[in-house]
């Protein structure tokens, strides 16, 4: 049979798609201006911390929000975050409230181009109108204007075209505001509003599908917060599963982790999460952190990732008893020797850390106890810096004093002694993390 109608259908479908695309450039419902009201600006400052805008848009503390952070984007290459200070030429100083909102909650720039979803507008869409107005007031009146031009994306044509993002949005962008759920109390709803919206936990902690989209945007979606790999770091499963997630943490431990980045005998934040603690969570109030913790603790359990609680593994080491006084050289030094020489000064020769928990224990340590040793290797190679209002913590980097082989041996020793099982890190695996 002669399918004469096939080409016509295809052309018609194409017209429908293009028409649909043209329709899917939504506009902000907000209009007008916002006054320079100190209380509103202060509220906006708090919400900007909640949204962790600084982690992407601040590269140097001397010029906050001037952008310039290089970020890898799949299929595109490297983009640099824009300047969101109120500078008229190089920042967003000429943007109206509507233009600001269109970017933050709809992912569309003032010039009409789509933003890459590296900007988490998918999450920020949940934020309510009043909070957007406060954020706008902060970025207009509360941030110092900085003149800074940032590099254009590294992609070459055709990957510079942004209209395919409209297709992506059609497929994956929900765009709805957060709706209060009756049946849950005010604290839960506040936590849900923060987690799904400004705190955008899912951006890192929810796995992604074939279109690089989060597989779920709230607790009703399957796989929400069940963990993901982000380049060289693992954002762990933080569902309520007792083994694979944080189900065996108390709400207070979770709140303390977010507020300080350090729960002695449980976990310390490093890498991107240390930044989130430093720039965002440590600057938020106790009630909001308790709400966030309460919500996250109720997410449906997902048991992928690990068969045992990461933070409840390992025992103190007694390697020192057999090694003290014994000579060694490059050839004969065991991994335990590297542990004693490089780690034990702060983490104690038993791995117990200090009594006050300032220097963490290596056992009962959620990073050392994780099956994937990459985060541990990262911390050894690059160190750790976590600065909050009350503490400025620095663990030095060991990448320049340990070879790939030594790092691999050390990681395998540490996970064997202080984790659940010895990892099988290789030289090559370490070299890829440098």
């Amino acid at each position: 049979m002669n399918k004469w109608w096939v080409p016509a259908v295809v052309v018609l479908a194409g017209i429908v798609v293009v028409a649909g695309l043209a329709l899917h450039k939504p506009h902000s419902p907000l209009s007008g201006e916002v006054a320079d009201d100190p209380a509103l600006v202060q509220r906006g400052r708090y919400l900007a911390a909640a949204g962790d805008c600084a982690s992407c848009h601040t590269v140097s503390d001397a010029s906050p929000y001037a952008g310039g952070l290089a970020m890898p984007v799949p299929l595109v290459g490297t983009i640099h975050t824009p300047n969101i200070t109120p500078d008229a030429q190089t920042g967003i100083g000429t943007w109206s409230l509507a233009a600001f909102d269109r970017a933050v909650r709809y992912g569309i720039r003032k010039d009409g181009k789509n933003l890459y979803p590296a900007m988490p507008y998918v999450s920020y869409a949940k934020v309510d109108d009043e909070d957007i107005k406060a954020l706008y007031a902060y970025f207009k009146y509360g941030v110092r204007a900085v003149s800074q031009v940032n590099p254009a994306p590294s992609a070459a044509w055709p990957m510079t075209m942004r209209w395919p993002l409209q297709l992506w949005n059609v497929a994956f962008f929900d765009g709805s505001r957060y709706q209060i759920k009756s049946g849950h109390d005010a604290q839960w709803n506040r936590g849900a509003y923060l987690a799904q919206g400004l705190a955008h936990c899912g951006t890192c902690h929810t796995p992604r599908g074939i279109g690089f989209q989060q597989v779920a945007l709230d607790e009703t979606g399957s796989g929400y917060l069940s963990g993901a790999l982000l380049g060289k770091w693992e954002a762990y499963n933080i569902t309520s599963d007792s083994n694979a997630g944080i189900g065996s943490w108390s709400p207070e431990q979770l709140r303390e982790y977010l507020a300080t980045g350090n729960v002695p005998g449980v976990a310390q934040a490093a890498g991107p999460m240390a930044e989130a603690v430093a720039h965002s969570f440590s600057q938020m109030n106790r009630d909001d952190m308790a709400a966030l913790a309460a919500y996250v603790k109720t997410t449906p359990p997902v048991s992928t990732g690990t068969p045992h609680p990461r933070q409840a593994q390992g025992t103190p080491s007694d390697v020192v008893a057999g090694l003290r006084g014994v000579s060694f050289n490059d050839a004969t030094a065991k991994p335990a020797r590297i542990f004693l020489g490089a780690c034990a000064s702060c983490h104690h020769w038993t791995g117990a850390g200090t009594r006050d928990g300032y220097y963490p224990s290596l056992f009962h340590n959620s990073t050392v106890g994780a099956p994937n040793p990459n985060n541990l290797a990262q911390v050894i190679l690059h160190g750790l810096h976590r600065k909050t209002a009350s503490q400025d913590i620095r663990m030095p980097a060991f990448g320049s004093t340990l070879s790939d082989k030594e790092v691999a041996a050390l990681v395998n020793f540490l996970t064997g002694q202080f984790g659940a099982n010895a990892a099988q890190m290789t030289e090559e695996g370490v070299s890829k993390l440098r």
Partner: protein
Amino acid sequence: MNDTQDADIVIVGAGVAGSMVAHQLAMAGKSVLILEAGPRVPRWQTVERFRNQPDKGDMSEAYPNPPWAPAPHYSKPHDYYIQKGAIVYASEYLRMVGGTTWHFTANTWRFRPNDFKEKSTFGVGRDWPISYDDLEPYYYKAEVEIGVTGDQDYGSPRKQPYPMRQPPTPYAEKVAMELLNAFNPEFNVTTQPACRASRPYDGRPTCSGNNNCSPICPIGAMYNGIMHVEKAEHAGARVLENAVAYKIEVGPDRKIKAVHYKDSQGASHRIIGKYFVLASHTIETPKLMLISTSGDYPNGVGNSSGMVGRNLMDHPKTSVTFYSGKPLWPGRGPEQSTSMIGYCDGAFRSTMAAKKIQNWDLNVTLSETQKIFKEGKLLKPAALNARIRDRASRFMSYNSYHEILPLPTNRVVPSKTEKDAIGIPRPEIYWNVDDYVKRGAAHTRKVFADIVSVLGGSETEYDDTFGTSQHPVGTTIMGNDPRDSVVDADCRSFDHQNLFIASGAVMASVSTFNITLTIAALALRVADTLKKEV
């Protein structure tokens, strides 16, 4: 002759001076090659070797002392030095990548303005060819590079605030400081400028009181020269370890053409360069110049003045130990946090040596326990523990850095007969202290007695034999006159236009202060000169 390599700038010595020069020049885009006689050892190995060593007071045992790059080590300096003087010279240093700042005590003082003009001010010693003001901007630059804390100028005027705030003073030293200053304000016991991070700095963690600055900071809170070695390499400089320079080759135009070095097997290699910087500390630098003899240079390279190797200075040291009346608990925190600076400068310097007096704030539990066992009495545990607590909490140790003037008779001379394992001459040291120092030390003894009395001390033991303090300087002295100096105000050799010296060896006075910051400042100044020329 195995091979020939080349670089714009060839630096001999990968310590703080050499690596700072290398870093600056590599960042300016020059090709830089550093030859280091000794090996490269990562921090974690030194930490473990320290913990493995029986005498925890030995500050160099954890470090290598290979036969091709021997150095005077703490407990056996005479394996290397050949003592030719009236008294023993025993200052030790390290020959390895990173140099001697692996195990200093983090003291980063500036000299005083008068230290640069002792001849015109006091009629003794020499004037430097530069003033304190000339060096002041480089002192600051060095403080930023190294990461220095402080809370006052300590008599060395400064234009900029310290890069980091001063950390708190350990209890024992704070109590002593208050009591001593109340007894005699002339003492002027103060905190001191130091290079231990008081907050995360440049990737370094905050000092957490390992009480182990010397011999090794386990966590890298204290500055070590290795940090600039790594920065220099990151900027493109190359380091050749186990490369022992043994000959400086002069070209027909009196410029240095090459440096020859031997590897650990004794095989010879040649490095050609445009500019050469000797940065091998105060004993090896003149030794290398003096053994680089040839037909044209029978007295060695750069030695038309005859001063290479001469004017060796250091800080002749006397000390006192005692047990304080009340427990003060030394050994909590850094190894040294206060100094008595009341006698570092003053009109008296025309007749007697100035000095700085400091205490050694070390945890002495093990050595005190060994002393208790030496008494030969078997004690019950409770009594033994109480005795350990009593002794460890009250043991106090003070020492003094006297200034010795540049005396040409104090010198380093390569031995004509004694050689090391790869055939390079060992250094003969001619060393003595003169009456200028002895007069100063007599006054120091009185101050020590006052300290003992103020702190309620007993079982006092004085050590008046003049030890040295690991602060050698002066052997390639700076000056305006090529007849009595080796390098000019830019630290350039008077004899060889492309030869510079970045080292304590150029210093025209030793003052009473620890020498590292001044070495670093001079090195950064050499780097600035080279950046313009190379």
